C-alpha cells in the first residue's frame, strides 16, 4: 500500500477516525503504531522484523547510553546502535552491488567468479528509518535529548506511517516533544493538511506521472532515436518529474501528519530557484542534506580543517549521499559529480569572497540570473546520471544538453502538455518560492484555497493516469 492507491484511501480515513475517536494517550498511540506497522507490512511483509529489530536495538542502546556514566561504555552502546543500523542497511542494500563488482574484479584478475543468480529484496524505507534511528542515539549520546522511556513512543517515532516509506527523515528532537500529549489537530492544521495532501497528490499523479508517461520514459528509453532539442526537453521534464514525485510524497506525508496533529519538517524549498549548487542542496531533500551535515560532515571536521581536508569531507559526504540513494555506479557517479561541483563552488566562493568588484558583480540581477541558469543546467545534467538506461545513452543526453545550439535549439516535437506541466512547476516556484513562502496559496482567502484544492482534486480524478506509478524514492 502506497500513497495514491485505493487501499490507502480506505486505510487513511479509517485510521484517522479510529485515532480521533479513541481517548487516552496510550490507546491512541497503540492504534497509530499498529496502523504504521500494518502499513509497513503491506509494503514489505517479510521485513517487518527489520524495523522492529532496529527499533528495539536503538531504544535499548539509547537507554543504556543515558544510564551509563563512563564515556567508553556510552561510546560502545552508540557503536552498537550505529553498527546495527548500518549493518542492516549495508547487508540489504549493498551486498549484491559489492558481489557484482567483486566478481567483475576477480574476472579481470583472471579468476572468474560465477555470476549472481540471487537477489535481495530491499526492505521498504530502510534508508530512512535507519538514519532516523542513528540520529536518535547520536543525539542521546551528545546529550542533546534524553532517551525515551516508553517503547511505544519510540516505536511510533520510528514507524509513523506518513513518513515511514520515503521520509522526510524526522529527528527525535523535532518529533518526540510533539508526542508528550496526543496533539489534537487545529482547524488550521486540518486545512493545511488538505493543502499539502491534495497538492502533493497533484504533483505526483498529475505532473510527475503524466510527464513520465507522455514524454520522459520514451525519450530516456532510446535517446538516440530523438533529435537533440527533444532530448533537451526530456532532461528538463525528468528534472521536473523527479522533483514532483519526491516532493509530492513529502507533501502528502506532511499533510497526513497534520491530520494527526503532528508537524513534519519541510523536505524541499523550491530547489530549482537555486543560484548555486550549494544553494541547491540547501533546498533539495533538506532532511537528508541536514542529516548528512550534522551527523557526517561536521563530525568529520566540516570546513574547520585545511582546504584539502574540507574538500575531502565534501567529496566523502556526497559520494555517500549518492550511494545512500542506490547501490549502483550511476548513483556513485551522481554523488561524485555533486561533490566535485560543491568543491568547485567552494573554491570559487573562497577566491572571490571579500573582493570588492566581485561582490559588486555578484550582487547584480544579471549575475544572479546567469548563476541560476548555470546551476539549473548543472543540476539537470547531473540528474541524467540517475535515469540513463546506459552510459552511452547518458552521453547522448548530456551532449544534447551541452550542445552549442543550446539557446537556439528548443524547437522540438514535444507533446503540447509537456510545456504546460513544466509551466505548472515553474509557476509554483515563482508564485511562492520567489516570495520566500512555503506556498503562496496558504495565504489566500479560504474560498479561493478551497476552490483551488477542489479544482486540483477534480483534475486528479478525471485526468491523471488510471494507474499510478510507484514513488521513485520508495526504491531507496
Amino acid at each position: 500500500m502506497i500513497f495514491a492507491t485505493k487501499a490507502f484511501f480506505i486505510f487513511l480515513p479509517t485510521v484517522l477516525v479510529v485515532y480521533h475517536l479513541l481517548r487516552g494517550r496510550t490507546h491512541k498511540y497503540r492504534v497509530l503504531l499498529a496502523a504504521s506497522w500494518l502499513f509497513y507490512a503491506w509494503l514489505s511483509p517479510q521485513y517487518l522484523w527489520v524495523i522492529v529489530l532496529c527499533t528495539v536495538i536503538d531504544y535499548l542502546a539509547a537507554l543504556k547510553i543515558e544510564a551509563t556514566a563512563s564515556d567508553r561504555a556510552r561510546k560502545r552502546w552508540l557503536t552498537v546502535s550505529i553498527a546495527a543500523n548500518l549493518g542492516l542497511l549495508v547487508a540489504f542494500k549493498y551486498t549484491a552491488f559489492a558481489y557484482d563488482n567483486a566478481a567483475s574484479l576477480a574476472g579481470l584478475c583472471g579468476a572468474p567468479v560465477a555470476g549472481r543468480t540471487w537477489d535481495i529484496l530491499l526492505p521498504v524505507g530502510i534508508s530512512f528509518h535507519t538514519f532516523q534511528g542513528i540520529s536518535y542515539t547520536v543525539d542521546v549520546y551528545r546529550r542533546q535529548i534524553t532517551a525515551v522511556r516508553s517503547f511505544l513512543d519510540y516505536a511510533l517515532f520510528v514507524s509513523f506511517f506518513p513518513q515511514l516509506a520515503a521520509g522526510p527523515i524526522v529527528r527525535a528532537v523535532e518529533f518526540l516533544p510533539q508526542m508528550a500529549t496526543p496533539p489534537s489537530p487545529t482547524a488550521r492544521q486540518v486545512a493545511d493538511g488538505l493543502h499539502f495532501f491534495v497538492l502533493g497528490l497533484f504533483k505526483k499523479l498529475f505532473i510527475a506521472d503524466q510527464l513520465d508517461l507522455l514524454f520522459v520514459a520514451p525519450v530516456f528509453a532510446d535517446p538516440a532515436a530523438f533529435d537533440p532539442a527533444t532530448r533537451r526537453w526530456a532532461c528538463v521534464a525528468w528534472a521536473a518529474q523527479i522533483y514532483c514525485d519526491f516532493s509530492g510524497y513529502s507533501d502528502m506525508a506532511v499533510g497526513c501528519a497534520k491530520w494527526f496533529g503532528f508537524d513534519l519538517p519541510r523536505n524541499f524549498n523550491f530547489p530549482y530557484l537555486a543560484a548555486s549548487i550549494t544553494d541547491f542542496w540547501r533546498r533539495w531533500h533538506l532532511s537528508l542534506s541536514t542529516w548528512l551535515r550534522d551527523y557526517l560532515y561536521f563530525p568529520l571536521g566540516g570546513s574547520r580543517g585545511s582546504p584539502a581536508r574540507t574538500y575531502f569531507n565534501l567529496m566523502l559526504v556526497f559520494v555517500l549521499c549518492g550511494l545512500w540513494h542506490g547501490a549502483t555506479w550511476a548513483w556513485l557517479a551522481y554523488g561524485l559529480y555533486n561533490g566535485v561541483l560543491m568543491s568547485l563552488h567552494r573554491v570559487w566562493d573562497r577566491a572571490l569572497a571579500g573582493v570588492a568588484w566581485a561582490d559588486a558583480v555578484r550582487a547584480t540581477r544579471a549575475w544572479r540570473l546567469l548563476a541560476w541558469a548555470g546551476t539549473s543546467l548543472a543540476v539537470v545534467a547531473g540528474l541524467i546520471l540517475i535515469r540513463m538506461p546506459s552510459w552511452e545513452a547518458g552521453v547522448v543526453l548530456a551532449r544534447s544538453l551541452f550542445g552549442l545550439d543550446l539557446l537556439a535549439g528548443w524547437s522540438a516535437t514535444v507533446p503540447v502538455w509537456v510545456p504546460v506541466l513544466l509551466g505548472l512547476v515553474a509557476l509554483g516556484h515563482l508564485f511562492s518560492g520567489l516570495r520566500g513562502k512555503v506556498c503562496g496559496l496558504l495565504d489566500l482567502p479560504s474560498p479561493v484555497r478551497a476552490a483551488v484544492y477542489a479544482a486540483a482534486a477534480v483534475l486528479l480524478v478525471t485526468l491523471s493516469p488510471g494507474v499510478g506509478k510507484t514513488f521513485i524514492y520508495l526504491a531507496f
Partner: protein
Amino acid sequence: MQTRPTTRPGTALRLRGPNVGRVAVVATAVLFPARWRRLAGFVSRNRTVVLFTLFMLGADFVVGRFTATWERHSPDDYAARVTGCARARRDLVFVGGSPVTEGIDPGRIAGIDWNGRSLASAYAVGLSGGTTSDFYHAVVRACPAPPRVLVYGITASDLNDSRHEPHGPYSLMTWGDLTRWVRLRPESAEWVTRHFVRARVGQASNLYRYRHGIRMWAATEADRLVPGSCPESVREADDLRDSAEALETGSGYAPARGFAVGRYDAIKAAELSPGPFTYLDKYRTGSHLKYLHLLIDWCDANGVELVLIDMPVTADLEAKYPAAFAEYRTRLAEVERDRGLPVLRPTRTAVGLTDAHFADLIHMNRDGAARFSAWVRAALEGVGRE
C-alpha cells in the same frame, strides 16, 4: 491565572460599532440553541475544508447533469450493450462473449423466417471477457420484453470456473443477483461481493464513475482548440464514440478496430505471437454451468426459444487446449440431452472459415463475421422450420 480570550485577535476590531457581524452574532445567540452555535463555530473554523467538500459535491452534481455526454465518449461496454438491446422490443437476441461481439453481425441475420414469422429486430449482446454467469444477468436486464428467440453463442471459456470477470458485478448485477450468486456459487462469494461493493462505492461519485468519459471529452475539446494536442486520446475517444453510437442505434455489432481488420494467417506467416490467451487455463466446469441452467429456466418461463451455437474457433486454439475443449463439449452434450435444447455445432469447414477469417486465436475478423453470420442465418432458418 490566564483566561482564554473569548474572541480571536482582530475579531473585536472588525465587530466594533453597530455592524452586521455583531448583529449576526447576537441574533445567532438568541435564536439558535448552543448546539447549533457550536456547529456554526465548527463550520466557521473549518471553512476551507467545508468549502472544499461543498465544491467537490457541486462538481459531482454538475458532472451528474451531463452523464449522456460522458457515456457517449466512453460507454460502459456491458451496460451500453444491455441498454442498447433493451431500448426496443427484439425478436432475436444473440448473447455470448467476445466471439459473439466480433463474429455475429445481427444486421445480416435479422428478418429470418421463424415458424412462419419474421424475426425483424435483432441485437447482439456480446460481452467481451464475459462468462455464462454474466450472460444470464445480461439477458435478464437486456430483455425486459422477452424476445422470441435467444441465441447463445457459447464457447469453452464461458464455462471455465477459474475465470471471473469483474465487469459483470460492476455493470449488470443487482443486490438480488449478488445474493443468488453467493448462494449458487459460494466458492466465489468473497470475490463477487468484493467487486460488487467496490462497484457500488465507485458509482457513488459521478466524478469517479465518469472519469474516463470526461477525459475523452476533454481530449476531444482540447484537440479542437489546439489540433494535434492529444492525438492518441482523440483516436481512442473517436473509437469509443463510434462504438457508443453503434451500440445505441445499431444492432450491437461494433467490432474493435484491431479485430475487424486483423488476419490470423498473416500473424502466423510473420511468425508473430498471437498474444497471450489464458482464458482456458486451469479449466474446470460446474459453477458457471448453473447459470446456463438458470438461463434455460428463464427462457422456459418467458416463452423464449433458446438455441445454443458452439462458436467456431481456430484449430490452433483447440489443439492448444484439447482437454478443456473435450470437457466443455461433454458438458454441452449433457445440457443438450438433459434439457432438450437445440445446439448448433458449425465446423470451420462447414462454414468455410480458415485462419484468414480470424483476427487471432478466437476472434473472427469482419470477413469471418460476414461469412459466419450468413451461415447462422441459414442454420437458424432451418431450426425455425423444424
